[in-house]
């Protein structure tokens, strides 16, 4: 029993590598879709775990209500073997589940960490309390929560975007809920995230590492626009500065 469960968990460790190799052979990778898919699987997994325990608990809580004040419990006294079995069997089942989740998670994580070769690079700088974005041609943009003015982050639809991020003062964090990515932005270090804007839409980046008084005002729009419009905007920006 023990041996078989261990054996079962080995493919759980090996498969992600294979899966990932197959995954990266595909053309368009959408981290968001992968994330959502995994999230559903995790929810089902946890739901099953939770339900098994809850149903048992409810059942017993009702069934074993004392009928008289002097009644005492008759819980089973485990033999040595039973008590080992009740420890080892669940332990291996839980472990198998853990390795399953770890492997699944790591597969998707690799997608998140491997930036596609054709990614468009934008530099991000965190300041107390605003974001600054610098495009390859030197154009920079920001956004002010106060006046609600500024372009924020503009990205072209259909091209993966990689952000190289650093901070001028304290730790901030670049959180982009719509694209399921988030990474801290720190002084003295450069971190990165990438995402794939597949359709035209406007979302928000929020600073999600506590950074002081205006922490919750440190947000900016993220606009994904068609490539042509994006190039046009960038050109115009370049010529006006």
């Amino acid at each position: 029993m023990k041996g078989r469960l261990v054996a079962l968990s080995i493919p759980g460790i090996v498969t992600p590598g294979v899966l990932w190799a197959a995954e990266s052979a595909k053309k368009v990778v959408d981290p968001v879709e992968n994330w959502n898919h995994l999230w559903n699987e995790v929810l089902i997994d946890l739901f099953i775990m939770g339900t098994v325990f809850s149903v048992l608990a409810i059942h017993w809580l009702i069934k074993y209500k004392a009928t008289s004040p002097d009644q005492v419990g008759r819980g089973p006294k485990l033999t040595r073997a039973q008590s080992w079995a009740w420890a080892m069997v669940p332990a291996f089942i839980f472990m198998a589940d853990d390795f399953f989740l770890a492997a699944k998670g790591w597969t998707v994580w690799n997608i998140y960490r491997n930036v596609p070769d054709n990614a468009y690079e934008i530099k991000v700088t965190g300041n107390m309390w605003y974001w600054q974005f610098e495009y390859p041609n030197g154009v920079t943009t920001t956004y002010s929560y106060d006046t609600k003015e500024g372009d924020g982050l503009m990205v072209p639809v259909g091209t993966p975007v990689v952000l190289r991020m650093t901070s001028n003062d304290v730790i901030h964090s670049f959180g982009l809920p719509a694209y399921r990515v988030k990474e801290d932005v720190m002084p003295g270090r450069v971190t990165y995230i990438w995402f794939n804007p597949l359709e035209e839409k406007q979302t928000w980046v929020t600073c999600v590492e506590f950074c002081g008084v205006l922490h919750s005002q440190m947000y900016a729009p993220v606009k994904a626009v068609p490539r042509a419009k994006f190039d046009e905007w960038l050109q115009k920006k370049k010529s006006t500065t």
Partner: protein
Amino acid sequence: MSTESHGFNLREWIFTTDHKRIGVLYLIGSIAAFSVAGIQALMIRIEQSSLGPTLVHDVATGGNQYNVWLYFHGAAMILGFLIPGLTGFAANYFLPLMIGAKDVAFPRVNAFSVWLFYAGIVMALLTFVVGDPPDVMWTGYPPYSVLTSGNTAFYVFTVHLLGFASILGAVNFLVTVIYMRAPGMGWNQLNMFVWSTVTAFVIQLVFVPVLASAVTMLLFDKYLGTHFFDPANGGDVLLYQNLFWFYSHPAVYVILLPALGILYEVVATSAKNMIFNYKAAVYGGMWGIVLISGEVWIHHLYIAGMPNWIRIGMMVSTLLISVPVGLLTISLFGTLFRGAITYTIQMKYAAACLFLFLIGGLTGIPLAMTVMTTHLSETSFVHAHFHYIMGIFSTFAVFAAVYYWFPKMTGKLAGEKLGNLGFWFNFIGVNVTFMPLFIIGVQGMPRRYWNYEMFPQFEPFHKVALLGAILVAIGMGMTILNWVISAISGEKSPANPWKSASLEWTDCANPPGPGNFTKDVVIKPEWTPYNYV
């Protein structure tokens, strides 16, 4: 023969070195911290109930007020309420009684601990007195905590004082359990609560000092100009986070373990049943947690750009915590099996806890997966996770403890009516408060945000959460009031109202006098604290 004391003597209380009275002092202090921090929680909920400024003055400075509430709420709830409530109050009062000891090994050190705890509470409360209160959150990350104009020193000293109290407590109780068990009491005859506090104290002993060193460096950086966390001068920005979580993750088990220990006592006594698979729960579950808890802290730094090799290791070890916790779950749930359950108030809290624990614990699993956290970290999903397991589950465990041992501490029975009413308000209220936070968390509601004008779609959820918080506040108010009223004018309790088989009920008075036991306790080899036949 009777060791009843004669009336109330303030001097004897303040200067006491008796573990029971020190336990009561801990309880009073931690409930006070809970009440003040709970009121801050209400302010937070009211503030978030509408998009723009609600309680705060205006957008430009409002953050300051909100951040101070949130700082106090987080720091006081964890460091001032739960840890002292569980390892201070409950362990102090009941651990020596359960092992048949007259007191702890070092009664004066014990008194020293409780006053250090009060000094820590004073430092924390100074937040509301000074003009530049600490605004660094309970995590206190530099460089912000070094650069802020807020008073980070108060944060540091609060941690120092409470931490020193914990370390001394740990030494004291570990020595007590090793040397002062009643003659004949073997390791497998200890109460689950005793084991759970022993393991919690082992964690405190090893990890608190690291936190102390981390905040000390913070103090030096801010006020003496050193460069521990300053990357421009050769320091490391993430060093503090690593040291902080090296302690603060294990700290969650300092809360979880005694909370589970209490539930074991309550469930076993209410179901008049023996513990299901005692040895697996103690040696696999509790010691398993101690073993793994120090190797998982990176799961709080997933979004801080850690290298992959350490990330994958700690992801696996974090997930593996579900194995020892799972063994404890099986053993706790199994204790209901073929029991004879009586539904007292404490058992209602305990039953509620079983579900709160599943919700809170299982939602830790996605957080433990690196890739899930890239989205979920720093959102209210995390809030909902830890409020379920800590803010509710562990808090309910403290309440269960107070109800369960109320007759022991006061000699009176706690009022049923108000107690039950309070329970239902609490139980419904917490779910109404924190369920919505799961939902908006997955949709990206950021943490520590009083202003979420970019996400107006979340407003209704925050309104529901406010409603829940009000229910909880009513329930908590009733509960605390109930204790005060019952302690003063409650009905006299029988000697062993729940018919427990554990030493603190069978062998000493309500409340026990000086020296606890009227005759020496000697343990027979076949005795266990859960022997109901």
